[in-house]
Structures are given as C-alpha cells and as structure tokens.
C-alpha cells in the first residue's frame, strides 16, 4: 500500500550539489540553474519531486520513442569500440594518404 502524498516530503528535494559555476544537481540526472542566477528576470519555480522526476523521465521516454521511430535498433558506440579493441582489430589504421591535408 502506498504511503500517500506528503506535501513536505514532495517539496523537499535532495540537498543541491554544485556541479559547475552555474549549475547544481539534486536527483540523479536532474540539473538546475544556480538559484542565485534566477533572481531578477526569471524566478525559479518550485516543483514537487514527483513532477521534477516526471519531466526528467518523460525526456528519456521521448528520446527512446524517437530512436524507435527512425530505426529498428540503436547500435551503441561502446559496442563498436569493443569490436575495435579485440586482438588484431584495432591495429589497422585508416589509410589517409589519399586524403587532402586537413
């Protein structure tokens, strides 16, 4: 059984961790502009935690949908790198002799 919706709990995100001079993070994969930079023209909005996570997860859902829309499957670059790193596979260098100077 669900514990239900608790207002205080929903409005208490994890303590922000600074990740750059201009951004902080709260939940994993959730980044926010440093609140000091949103004090005059655009004020930072308060979201309940469930909504913050919904927005973040929806973004991933959208990207997953777009992949399926354009191709049956996505080959990951790490798979290709692993193939290159197999013994003998990664030693071949691309012949650039025919290419113009970069």
């Amino acid at each position, binding site marked *: 059984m669900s514990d239900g919706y608790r207002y205080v709990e929903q409005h208490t995100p994890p303590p922000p961790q600074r990740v750059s001079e201009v951004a902080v993070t709260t939940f994993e994969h959730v980044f926010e502009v440093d609140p000091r930079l*949103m004090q005059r023209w655009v004020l930072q909005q308060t979201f309940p935690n469930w909504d913050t996570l919904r927005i973040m997860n929806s973004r991933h859902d959208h990207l997953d949908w777009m992949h399926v829309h354009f191709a049956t499957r996505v080959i990951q670059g790490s798979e290709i790198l692993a193939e290159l790193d197999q013994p003998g596979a990664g030693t071949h260098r691309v012949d650039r002799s025919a290419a113009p100077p970069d």
Partner: protein
Amino acid sequence: MTITADRVEDVVAALRDVLRDDQVLTSKADRYHRSRVPAPFPVHRWAERLPDLAVLPETTEEVAAVVRIANQMLVPVIPRDGGTGLTDGAVPLRGGIVIDVKRMNAIHEIDLNNRTCTVGTGINMLKLNEELARHGLIYPDDPASYPCSLVGGRIGTSGWSLIGARYGHTRDLVLSFDHVLPTGEIIHVGDGIGGKITKSSSGYQLKHLFMGHQGTLGIATRATLKLFPKPEAELSPFWAFDNYDDAYACTGALARAGVATFAGAVLFDEHKVAYLRRDDEAYIPQPDDVRALVCAVMYGYEDEVRPAGRRLMRIARDHGARYLGDEISAGDWAARHDRYATPLHGRTKAGQVVPMSWHCEDASINYTNLPAVTRQWHAIVAALRRRTDVFDDWGMFAYTNGSTGTDYLTEIDVGIWEQRLDDQVWEMWVRAKRDLAGVSLAHGGSISACHGSCREGEVDLVPDELGKGFDVMLDVKRALDPNNIMNPGKYLLDRAYEPPGAVT
C-alpha cells in the same frame, strides 16, 4: 490589415461561395495565430503582420478557387503550412488571406512496388512515417522541426535534412507535385511528366523553380514522395576534443571517407560547447578540457552499419577524439530531430537568466572556409552583445550538406530577448544579419543552406548572391504573378513591378 473592413466583408462573401463557413476564419485569435513564425521579431510591431483572414481549404480545387478570387480582387495571399520556417516565408507583410493547408493532410496512396507515396501537402513527416512504418518504409526528410513542419512548407522552403548526406534533401525526395499558380491555374511539376518519375531530361526542370520560392510563386497542394526502407540500425557516436582544430580536421575526414551509410556529421565549436556546458544537462558535467565536439550518424542494415562504424571510429581516434559515451551519443542525436521543443533562456552579461527566443542564422559554406566564417560570425555577435544584453551567442554548428564533405550548413544560434527588441535594437540586429550574410558571400558561400534568405538584412544581399540571376527571378515573378498578390513583400520581388506593385 491592409484592406478596409468593407472590402474584407466583400472578400469573405466571395470566399463563402467556394468554401463552407467553417473554412473561413476571421476572429482575432485565428489571425494572430497565423501571423508569426518562431524566428524572433520586434513583438511591439506584431499588428503589422496580421492577415485580414485565414482559410482552410481541403482540396487543390478549393485552393485554386481562393487564389482566383484573390487575384481578381487584388488581395494578397500568404501560403502557410507548419509556420515553422525561420525566414518569415509564412508571415503576412501586407495583410490579406492566409491559406492554411493543414486540412490537406491525407495519404492518398502508398505504392509499395514503386516505393512512392502521394500525400496532401498539409501532412507532417512524423505522422506520415508512423503510417509508413507499418510497411517497413520511411520518408527520410528530417529537419530540426521534424515533429511540427509539413511537407508543403518543406517544398516552399526547399528544405535541408539532417540525414541528407544519406538520403538527399527535400528537393531530392519530392518527385512531383500539384501546384496552384498565383492566377489560380493548377499545374503539375516534376521531372518531365512528373508523377512517380525520378529522372527525366524532358523539358525545363520546373520542379526546382517551384521549390524554395517561400510562397511567392504559388502553393503546392499534393505531392508524390520517394520512400526508402526504414533503417534497421542507427549508430551516432559523439566524440570530444580539447581543441577546435582537431575537431574540424576530424569532421572533414569523416565526411570525405565515402562510407555508404554515412548520413551526416556535425561539428560543435568552442562557443557551442560552452553554451551546452552552461545549460544542457548532458554536457554540464563534462570536464573543462572538452572544448569541441563532433558526431557522425549512420543508418542502414546492421551488417552495413557496424563495419562503417568501425571505420569512422578509427578515423576519429586517429584525430585524437575521445568517445563521449553511449548515453550522450544516442540521446543527443535523438534530440536533434526535435530542436523546436527546447525551452529557451539566455543570460545577461552579469549571468542572470533572461527569457530568450532562438534565432538560427544559417549559410552554406565550403569546408575550407569554415574556420574563417566561424571566427567572423562570432565577432559580429560579440560586438552586438557588448552593446546590449538583448543578444547572447549560443555557439555554432557545422552540418554536412552531402556525402562528400564539400560544403556545410553553417549555423550560429543567437538568443534574443524578444520583448526588449525596440526599433533601435531591431535595426542593430538587421545590420548584423546583413554583415553575417556578407561574410558568407565573401567566402564564396550561399546566404542560406536551409531556411531561405528573405528576412530583413540578409535579403538585401540576395541580388549580390544571384547576380543577373536575380533579374531572371524578377522576370519569372512578373510573368507568373502579374498582380503581385502571392506573398508580396518577400525577396525584394516588388522590384518586378514598375510602377511599384499593384498590391502595396
């Protein structure tokens, strides 16, 4: 509004002879919704862009009937599809009738044997591809506005596709179409006889004349499109570099490699990386030594894409690239199909967040001229920003135009605080746009690869770009649109009419 209220009533009465009442829209909301495109403009002058009314035809014959009435009554006509273009093609500059084609969105035929489909031009590519996927097919015209732009607008713009290096751009993918001329006559254009023919040497190549005219030569209503197998596999590695020069060299090498499944490469410059590190969750955690980025994308069967991927990955490694990881690679590429959904804000020089709209200035630039154009474009935007916080440099991309790496869609993204665009700052921006276009031409480039070039500023240089070809444009316009009713005020085409245009 440019015609008097009495005349609007006369026009509405005439239109109701050929359309149902619900197809003729006159309310304030209906008109305001069809008066702008996403490109920032001085919003205090919004009223100057209002049409007098809008119509929603459902057939080619209805479009032709509306245009005949407009031509007879000397009322401007503005074709409008998705309204996503970035050079104001769908913006009414002199009131008149907006012809909104969104109800002409039927799929009339899917020809599985000849690999074509025939559609109403009001259909969106995403919705079309949902249906084509049921047959294992795709129509691979893929602009950054993919979820919201329409086939007809792509024709009117002669659009550019993200994956054009693999499948071609709109001009290559649209085989033929029905087209309503400014006098209301209906013609069919394509290669030779048109229809489902992909190559003909018969007669003039009229298809290209009626693409990219920004609605100044009429309205495409029904189009036959080339189809491909829906790709089995996609691979889109992103790589990081600690300097622009190596990333630039890598981009050129990837594009010149001649890999058959290669659909495109993108170069992100230092300003773009700095912008992303500031405001994009995927890049905020990236270390400081990530200063330029490159991505490549491949589509095809898995047994084609894997070896292609190994070849391009080796090329990237040879140029000092560091693979950025699967999550960014797959996620960022998927997001490129849908750039219009991005919520936008910029910063003042003091760092405060301000609401900003996105201006994307594009050009077609040869590979060897990319670094020089990049430097000069940034200098122009930097000069603007020194004078006012209305503008914010969001960096530059260079996207391959084709599969051989000859030239690149080169874009600088500029955040513009639209609500602060008064007449003085707007004029500052128009001068900057003229300067940006001038840099492109000085380097042998074209003012636009993708959007068209009929906005204030850039349009002033179109006669320079086309030379005597611009005089031919004027002759064609005058011959096909004797009363200057079709999207007047665009592309300096009023010069075709002496004395000045019949509709002013």
